[in-house]
């Protein structure tokens, strides 16, 4: 049995698409192909990510994560978080489930934020493409600014949410 409630947003958008179809069929055709492209992208990138999450969950003990990226991981944890995020490719929403399993495994929340930040805007494959299309000065300046900003923001946000996060991790 499929529950309807989780699909409310999906159904609402499909309904909006239908209305557009009656008034602007050409735009609707574009919407269908754009939506199809995004689903294809999701279906190509998410299966191996979830597979890795499942294997990670079962095989890698909490202590391993805690040692390298946990509460006392210091600079190593920060560097690892940046590396993991920057080595990636793919949309940011693919990073959310990975970050969630990292939380479960005891990774320091500040490092989770750094990982998400690095994934969002510091990915190396994306940097190379940005250099070739917009230019070296622009891309590299932005990359180093992002590095600085992400570190500062992650320290700040960590301060704001740490108590709530501790409760969450304890559950």
């Amino acid at each position: 049995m499929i529950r309807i409630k989780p699909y409310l947003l999906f159904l609402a958008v499909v309904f909006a698409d239908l209305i557009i179809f009656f008034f602007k069929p050409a735009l609707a055709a574009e919407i269908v192909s754009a939506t199809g492209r995004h689903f294809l992208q999701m279906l190509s990138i998410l299966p191996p990510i979830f597979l890795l999450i499942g294997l990670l969950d079962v095989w890698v003990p909490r202590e391993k994560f805690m040692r390298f990226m946990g509460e006392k991981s210091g600079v190593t944890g920060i560097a690892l978080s940046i590396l993991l995020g920057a080595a990636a490719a793919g949309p940011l929403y693919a990073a959310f489930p990975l970050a969630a399993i990292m939380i479960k495994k005891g990774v320091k929340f500040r490092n989770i934020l750094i990982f998400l930040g690095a994934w969002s805007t510091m990915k190396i494959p994306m940097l190379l493409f940005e250099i070739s299309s917009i230019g070296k000065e622009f891309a590299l300046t932005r990359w180093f600014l992002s590095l600085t900003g992400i570190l500062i923001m992650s320290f700040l946000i960590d301060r704001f949410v740490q108590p709530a996060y501790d409760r969450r991790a304890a559950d």
Partner: protein
Amino acid sequence: MFEIILYILAITFLVISFVKDRQKTRAALLKAWKAFTGIFPALAGILTLIGLLLSVLSPEIISGLLGQNTGFWGMILTSVIGAITLIPAFIAFPLAASLLQSGAGIMQIAVFVSTLMMVGIVTAPLEAKYFGWKVVLLRNGFSYLFSFAVAAIIGVVLA
């Protein structure tokens, strides 16, 4: 390219896992499936919404909006478009490059690229499912403001 590496990685680990312990591998697959089906409805909703938004806000319309608006209000406008939409890099960077060539300001483009990458209003409900709204608001809010700092500094450095 990255996706191929990801697949090779995942399949290699799966095979190793299967050889070492079938019971554990079963548990891992079950967890993977549960995690995926748990998030699928929200993801489906967001992807259809992105499909709709991206078609309405086509590159032509975005460049029209960006071309006419300069100064601070131009930055506000480009940052809002960047924050809402989720445009893949292979469209966004060439778009930004062609806008720069046709005379758009470097700061407007910088704030657009930065918010595009770091702020996700459309994906916020999904993000909140994993981390809670407080984290989502803080991360996206800080990133939005930070994008203006990036734009200002890029404006100075590349002037």
